[in-house]
């Protein structure tokens, strides 16, 4: 039934369902994928699924020849009586003391030692003159599940996991018991196609009574979730209906399909429990083809902007410009005054590292958390936790990567050629002014102290002495060059700021993509793979 339902949900195509071994392997792979991302967050679901895979492998390994049929039911229903009749010998004690059977009895039609070992059945019997139409049948007479002996219930619960076909043996006075419907039939409804129901002690009921009892039981089974349940009224005492029971068992045993159907139902049920199942949410959220868990474009852009802001990309660009201006001025400023700047801290030295500030950390944390929220819309809690971990948990790495990237941007790099030119002009101007000054000093010393005639010492040009011209020209050129270079440095620095900004944004984006977006994409891809594998395990293609 579960398999049918599983297929119904999958994409409509005519290809046959994958063989059971493949489905088993797919579930195993799915568990591995899920474990990689959920690790510990699955609430034990993965361990349960692993147990299903292990059990399925073991059972498949024992071959399809045998069919394990269990007779299960409340105490006194007549399980052992029916078992003895089917085996053709008084193998299991029957009686009026309740409960009678305490240990499971197993009877095989043909050799089945390995299987009975696996089932851990000690009380064994092999039918001597086997009806070959029942060849491969392994019939188990279980203890009850409703008496005061709790150990019986545990044994039933153990073997219910391993049965290929359930023959529920029900007493007409107990068919509506809560312990039967709520503890067994309803929880096992996914195995409804592997269930048959025997209503015993038909001889104690009248014709009409038997019919209405069977109808009432059928109705209750439908309420439990069993589609078209098969109810067989039987009396071992009078022999009524026994052929129907053996006919049903024969049919199932001959088909040799019940075991695979059981395993498939197990796999499908486990796969359904693991399924993150957010297809509907996806469609509603109008998500891109990367699927849930991936960071939507908008959210990724927001994350880059927020991270860039947090690590102070603007300030860093400003520092880059200031550093450029400073170095340019140191190179091309007016020599007599430019040394003062050396006393000021270099902007680059004053810049704080992005990761060193808890404010930056906090901003990045908040941005990553918002990204995690955006990526996990419509996703169940376990995966949300992993996505959050994948985002916020990687803050330190992210900041470390960013630190490397942003420090570089503020460096000026190779000294531009125009600085050398500016420095040369400043040098020439300084020499010029110095020559003029020295000349004037010589003239002043010559005229003042030595009382020489200064005229030959101070040849004039256009009414003023040449050294005066030289001094004036040198100073003027120096100041003008400094001003022009400062202007150029400001303009170039501005350009540098813009470029640095663009460059750093790009680098931030690069780091964010490689550290956050890409891992999330990979995770989303794994989720897609997980869903595909689970669909295979459920029997889709």
């Amino acid at each position, binding site marked *: 039934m579960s398999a049918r339902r599983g297929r119904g949900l999958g994409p409509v195509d005519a290809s046959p369902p994958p063989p059971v071994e493949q489905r088993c392997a797919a579930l195993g792979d799915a568990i591995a994928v899920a474990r990689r991302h959920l690790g510990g967050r699955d609430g034990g679901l993965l361990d349960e699924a692993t147990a299903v895979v292990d059990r399925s492998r073991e059972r498949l390994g024992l071959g399809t020849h045998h069919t394990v049929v269990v007779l299960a039911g409340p105490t006194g229903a007549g399980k052992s009586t029916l078992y003895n009749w089917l085996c053709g010998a008084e193998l299991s004690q029957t009686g009026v003391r309740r409960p009678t059977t305490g240990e499971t009895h197993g009877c095989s039609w043909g050799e089945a030692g390995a299987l009975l070992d696996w089932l851990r059945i000690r009380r064994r019997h092999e039918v001597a003159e086997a009806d070959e139409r029942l060849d491969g049948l392994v019939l188990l007479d279980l203890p009850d599940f409703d008496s005061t002996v709790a150990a019986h219930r545990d044994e039933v619960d153990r073997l219910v996991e391993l049965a290929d076909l359930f023959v529920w043996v029900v007493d007409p006075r*107990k068919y*509506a018991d*809560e312990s039967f419907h709520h503890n067994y039939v309803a929880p096992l409804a996914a195995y409804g196609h592997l269930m048959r129901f025997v209503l015993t002690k038909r001889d104690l009921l009248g014709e009409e009574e038997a019919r*209405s009892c069977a109808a009432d039981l059928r109705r*209750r089974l439908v309420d439990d979730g069993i589609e078209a349940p098969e109810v067989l009224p039987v009396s071992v005492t009078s022999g009524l209906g026994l052929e129907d029971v053996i006919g049903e068992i024969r049919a199932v045993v001959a088909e040799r399909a019940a075991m695979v159907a059981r395993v498939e139902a197990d796999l499908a049920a486990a796969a359904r429990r693991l399924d993150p199942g957010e297809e509907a949410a996806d469609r509603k959220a109008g998500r891109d083809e990367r699927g849930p868990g991936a960071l939507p474009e908008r959210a990724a852009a927001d994350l880059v902007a927020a991270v860039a802001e947090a690590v102070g990309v603007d300030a860093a660009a400003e520092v880059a410009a200031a550093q450029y201006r400073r170095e340019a001025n140191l190179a091309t400023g007016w020599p007599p005054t430019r040394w003062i700047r050396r006393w*000021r801290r270099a902007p680059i030295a004053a810049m704080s590292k992005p990761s060193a500030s808890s*404010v930056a*950390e906090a901003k990045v944390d*908040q941005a990553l958390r918002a990204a995690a929220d955006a990526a996990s819309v419509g996703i169940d809690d376990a995966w949300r936790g992993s996505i959050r971990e994948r985002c916020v948990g990687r803050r330190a790495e992210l900041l470390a990567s960013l630190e490397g990237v942003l420090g570089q941007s503020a460096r000026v790099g190779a000294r531009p050629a125009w600085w050398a030119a500016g420095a040369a002009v400043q040098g020439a101007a300084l020499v010029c002014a110095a020559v003029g000054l020295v000349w004037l000093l010589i003239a002043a010393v010559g005229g003042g102290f030595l009382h020489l005639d200064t005229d030959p010492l101070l040849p004039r040009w256009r009414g003023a002495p040449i050294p005066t011209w030289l001094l004036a020209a040198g100073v003027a050129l120096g100041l003008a060059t400094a001003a022009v270079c400062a202007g150029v440095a400001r303009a170039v620095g501005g350009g540098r700021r813009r470029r640095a900004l663009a460059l750093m944004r790009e680098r931030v984006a690069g780091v964010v993509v490689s550290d956050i977006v890409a891992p999330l994409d990979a995770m989303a891809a794994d989720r897609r793979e997980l869903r595909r594998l689970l669909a295979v395990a459920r029997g889709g293609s």
Partner: protein
Amino acid sequence: MSSRASLTELRSLLDEVAFPLDLAGTVDGSTVRRELIGQLDDYVLPRLARLDAPLLAVFGGSTGAGKSTLVNSLVGHTVTAPGVLRPTTRRPVLVCHADDTAWFVDGEILGDLPRYHRAPSADPASGSRSDQASGSTSGQRSPDASGVEVVAVATLPRGLAVLDAPDIDSVETANHELAAQLLGAADLWVFVTTAARYADAVPWEYLARAEQRSVALGVIVNRIPPGSEDEIAAHLTDMLDRRGLRPERLFTIAEGPLAEGRIPAVDDVRAWLTGLALDRPERDRLVRQTLAGVLQSVPARVDRVADEVQAQASASGALASFARARYEGALDAVEGELRSGELLRGEVLDHWREIVGTGEMMSRLQRGIGRARDRLAATFSGRPLPEVAVAGQLEANLEVLVARAADRASLEVVEGWSTMAGGAQALGVSARGLERSSDALGPAVKTTVNEWQDAVMRLVREQAGSKVTVARTLSVGLNGVGVALMVAVFSATGGITGGEAAVAGGTAAVSQTLLTAVFGEQALRDLVKQSRDDLRRRLYVAFTPEVERFDALLAGMPSAGLAPELRRVAGVVADEAGSDPGESGR
């Protein structure tokens, strides 16, 4: 016997009990409470009031055990409908002598259960069967399904009422609750089982309760394959013995053909029951035995309820204090980050330098000129004054840190609660919204930080007083001093020593010089501490609505004194019951 007063007090205390959390023992505790309340209302209080009321024998047991068939056989009328479909009886039928019907139709016995009087000639099938039809197909019960039908018959003596109860173990769970309620109101429980049923687990759970309450008990094993009566009777007696149950009588009835739907061999059961009705002393003994037993069972049952009340209280307390601790932790984290001086990095630092200069080169005069220039520039360009910029930066940084700490705390609470007892259920579907701070927190923190800054400024104005002149000469102005104080608050040592000079590039050292100049060292120490504490207090207030989101999920806890009070009153009830041997008849 106990006084009504202590029982009434117990009854109203039980009404106060509430189990808002879903703990391991909650289902059990609330079942015990519900049954105890029911038993007080349906049985103990009315029975105490009228010890002379008829003996109520409730036939209870598994579905299909033949309870209805037995009752019909005993009274010789079809007063309740038996059936092959399981379960059959949904509405209980009470049978008694015509003179006794008033006790049950109008009396307090059976508490709030609706009672219907039905003429004996009316067809019993009409009621039960139609109920069954509607009840079993839709799972709903017809509105009066839980009512009790009272039928008067002439075949029962006065002073005895027989009640056919619904089953205790079918899929119709409503039947179980009703059956448990009726058994709680019984003076005598006639436990009906069969050869196929007597070892079933469910009936033994009920029998254990009967043992706990020393209820007068009769056992009937019906439908025994002829010839096996002794074997089954022996086995059952053994099982009863091992569980400390000593029934008044044990009857075995072989399964034979029915005569007009009646079991022919019920004479000894009938004889026993009518005997009880006619033998006053014996009847009184049974009535008092059950009543005393129930009263004696009260302390243990109330203990169970009180244990659960305490478990709820401590689980709830653990959850609440966990949430509170997470937010306290968030405050600690913020404070730690403040003290590390990291708020003073980057732009804050730059602006701060603008206010106080780098300290190395600038003379006081230059600073004065600088400030005049700043004011001028601020007037024309609209650029904020440096101290305003510093304050703004500090505020923005602080807000980010607080927002992150609060978000972390809420996630930690959600994650922590999901692993704590009762936590996951308390969170329920609202967990998603609680993983992060509420939308109101952002604005609240903004206001809080602004108010704190205002408070710091006020403090500076008050404390500085005449010393303002000093600040003037330092040319940073009163606001500058305020910002300096904030800077001090945000630095590792509170600005007292220059230790963080390395961290903040001499900034704090400068602010220290400034502040010590204005306030003096001791006053400065106090001011910094005061401002820090003030900030923490204000943030705590801002976090309170966040914590209260979680507290709200724990609403509905009964008061702390309820558990001890319950135990005390239960003790009084039991003492009164035990201290009256003359009346208890035991």
